[in-house]
């Protein structure tokens, strides 16, 4: 045996050998611990969360992939409801302005034979309805027509428009939905403007004269254009994930959340490009179906889903009060109320998310409106807030004080209160349409909602992701925050000064907006908008937004009265806001 190997063997014998072996195993144990913990602590995707922390990874992924939009081909609706206004009838007997509208399904598919259900939501304040031909079911407005054949002639309806609009506004939308069974709805939108009826093409002096003109103007074109083929267009599929940790969802608080979402009290306003139409004709709203809201937790014990739908009763409010832009209309969305959602009696969760999915047909807009920034507002209706005293208190704080504060400090943020009308809206929450799935575009990710107490420092995490820049692009960062002080940018380790150099690819570039909430900041809801702009191409920008709830927060006691709505409202914003 070689001398060196004899030395090794002898080293493992005797007291010295035992000591050597002990030390060896001891060091091996320490090395094993080091290896295991390093492995467990590995952050190979450089997102600040250890890869073995599966719940943390899931939460981070959901938070950062908070908005995912893509364009994909979808068939347009089989039916296209339509409203036409044909003329003004001045009989001399009426003090109000009497108008004649035609309600119909326009241009159905040749194979389309299933009877429809129409629901007509007339302009707010309209009266003295007179239907010719097909009569609606008793009751209304809204007026419901069931089992209407696909080839049914248009339903003429004559009614009085109010001399002044509701809420002293002049813009009075009306809607007509058409639905096959329980299938997706298609909705026509017509905007009536009080005081502009003289711009209508004709003025009739009798009902008979108006009806004759209506039949010539409305029915004939419908017959001529029948027989279209169903089109397939690129639509936007926008998914929004909002993750919240540290606020427990129990069965009771889950039920309170979905009850609020399904009530009339909460809705979201989204401003979309106005679909093309003639002055005398309605526009087809660009949301037909496939819009969902889901609430689930990261442990898989909670899985609720409901369809989103229009809130026709809120359109008048939106058309008169929110900032109006030429070529854009406001639509109101809420959660479908036809069947009540019931939360399961699953284990409570401290890590959960709301997922919303919206299909939006903007095929009529230039380049499908790619890159557009849609304005979104979250609103609730009612002077008397829903829920119990604790919930009303928190909701009241959230909207009253926060919005007043926002209106004072950020007059350009289009944030207003409408308490006189019994409706309050908060925003804006910009929603930018960037296809992040089918194309390698750079994006600004990481919209979040956070709760904080004054004097504390808040960190709003975002990251630049996707794209490919060679040489690296310089990205300017900007923000608009109605509250807070000492705002500065950080890369997670040190303060940085924009622009940041960004090459795209992987890993993402993490950026953090850090600020301090000053003492005395009013409790409530605030929004912070962040803009990242490519320095050499100012038109190439991305927008993100965060919601901050300022105030004391503690998880509600089990079985108590949870003041949860304060956090749910941002969630409503998120889900529909993303649309």
């Amino acid at each position, binding site marked *: 045996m070689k001398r060196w190997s004899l030395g090794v063997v002898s080293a493992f014998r005797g007291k010295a050998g035992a000591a050597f072996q002990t030390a060896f195993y001891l060091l091996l144990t320490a090395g094993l*611990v080091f290896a295991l913990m390093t492995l467990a*602590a590995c952050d190979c995707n450089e997102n600040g969360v250890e890869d073995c922390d599966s*719940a943390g990874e899931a939460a981070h992924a959901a938070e950062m992939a908070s908005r995912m939009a893509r364009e994909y081909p979808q068939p347009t609706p089989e039916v296209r409801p339509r409203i036409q206004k044909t003329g003004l009838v001045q009989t001399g007997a009426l003090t109000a302005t009497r108008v004649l509208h035609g309600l119909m399904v326009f241009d159905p598919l040749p194979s389309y034979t299933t009877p429809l259900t129409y629901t007509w939501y007339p302009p707010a304040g309209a009266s003295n309805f007179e239907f010719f031909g097909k009569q609606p079911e008793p009751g209304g407005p809204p007026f419901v027509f069931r089992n209407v054949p696909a080839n049914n002639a248009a339903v003429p309806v004559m009614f009085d428009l109010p001399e002044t609009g509701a809420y002293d506004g002049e813009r009075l939308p009306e809607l007509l939905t058409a639905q096959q069974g329980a299938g997706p709805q298609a909705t026509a939108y017509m905007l009536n403007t009080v005081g502009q009826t003289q711009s209508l093409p004709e003025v009739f002096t009798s009902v008979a004269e108006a009806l004759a003109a209506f039949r010539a103007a409305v029915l004939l074109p419908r017959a001529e254009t029948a027989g279209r083929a169903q089109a397939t267009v690129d639509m936007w599929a926008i998914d929004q994930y909002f993750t919240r940790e540290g606020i427990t969802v129990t069965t009771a608080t889950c039920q309170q959340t979905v009850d609020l979402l399904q009530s009339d009290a909460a809705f979201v306003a989204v401003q979309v490009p106005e679909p093309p139409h003639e002055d005398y004709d309605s526009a087809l709203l660009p949301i037909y179906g496939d819009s969902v809201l889901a609430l689930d937790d990261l442990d898989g014990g909670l899985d609720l889903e409901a369809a989103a739908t229009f809130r026709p009763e809120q359109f008048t409010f939106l058309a008169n009060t929110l900032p109006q832009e030429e070529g854009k209309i406001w639509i109101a969305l809420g959660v479908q109320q036809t069947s009540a959602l019931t939360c399961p009696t699953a284990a409570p969760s401290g890590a959960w998310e709301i997922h919303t999915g919206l299909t939006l047909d903007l095929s009529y807009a230039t380049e499908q409106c790619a890159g557009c920034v849609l304005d979104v507002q979250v609103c609730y209706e009612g002077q008397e807030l829903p829920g119990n005293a604790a919930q009303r208190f928190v909701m009241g704080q959230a909207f009253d004080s926060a919005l007043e504060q926002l209106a004072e400090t950020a007059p350009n943020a289009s944030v207003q209160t409408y308490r006189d009308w019994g409706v309050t809206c908060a925003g804006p929450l910009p929603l930018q349409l960037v296809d992040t799935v089918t194309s390698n575009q750079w994006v600004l990710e990481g919209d979040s909602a956070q709760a904080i107490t004054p004097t504390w420092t808040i960190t709003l995490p975002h990251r630049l992701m996707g794209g490919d820049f060679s040489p690296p692009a310089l990205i300017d960062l900007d923000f608009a925050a109605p509250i807070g002080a000492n705002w500065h940018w950080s890369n997670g380790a040190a303060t940085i000064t924009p622009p940041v150099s960004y090459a795209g690819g992987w890993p993402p570039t993490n950026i953090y907006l850090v600020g301090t909430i000053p003492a005395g900041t009013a409790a409530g809801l605030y929004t912070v908008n962040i803009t990242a702009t490519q320095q050499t191409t100012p038109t190439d920008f991305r927008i993100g937004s965060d919601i901050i709830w300022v105030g004391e927060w503690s998880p509600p006691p089990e079985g108590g009265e949870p003041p949860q709505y304060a956090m749910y409202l941002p969630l409503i914003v998120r889900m529909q806001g993303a649309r």
Partner: protein
Amino acid sequence: MASALYALAALVGGAAYLYRVRRSELLPLLARNLLWLILGGFLGANLGGAAMLVSRLTGAALPFALKDTSILGALLGGTATALWLCRRYAVSFWSAADQGIPALPLALSIGRLGCFARGCCYGAPTASWLGLYLPDRAGNWLPRYPTQLLSAAANLLIFLALLAVERYGRPREGELTRLFFALFLLKRFGIEFLRGDALPAVLGPLNTTHLTCLAGLALVGAVSLTQRNP
């Protein structure tokens, strides 16, 4: 840094354990068995994560919330491994455990410094005088309960208490081990109220960790009664 502190904890804890044995002929064997104990503890610590993974893959919801990794799971895994080792070498579990157990809180005390460096096991935000400006795992810096440091201090106190009881209390076989488990579970029960990553409550203010601690305390009590009245 954190991994180095965890390794230091294992080194110091292991050395303290071997120092207490003082039978040099057994030291290599005991040192080698430390590897099994560490592996058992590591597997036990990740039981929650494994259960969550299975739940996700199968779509079967867990009846209660769990943590990915937990020290309670590590204790369970380590204890199971120790029982297996004692059975294999035909030695009394209680006797062996009494010899080694005081080294455990010492190691855990250092290990919590690793948690502090790593940012895990962080505390809930607080405005009390205890608050230190610390991050959570997402990097949100707030005044928080320094739960890692509180836990490290508590573990150190348990270590000292065990040494004192051993020296002056004349404990019977197994009592030192049961005392450690009782003190540790009480500490963990209390600290959970201050944790920022605490699981959601399932019974009043108590969550799964609290209930596990209470179950563990009940088990320790039951075993103590059994051992006292064999």
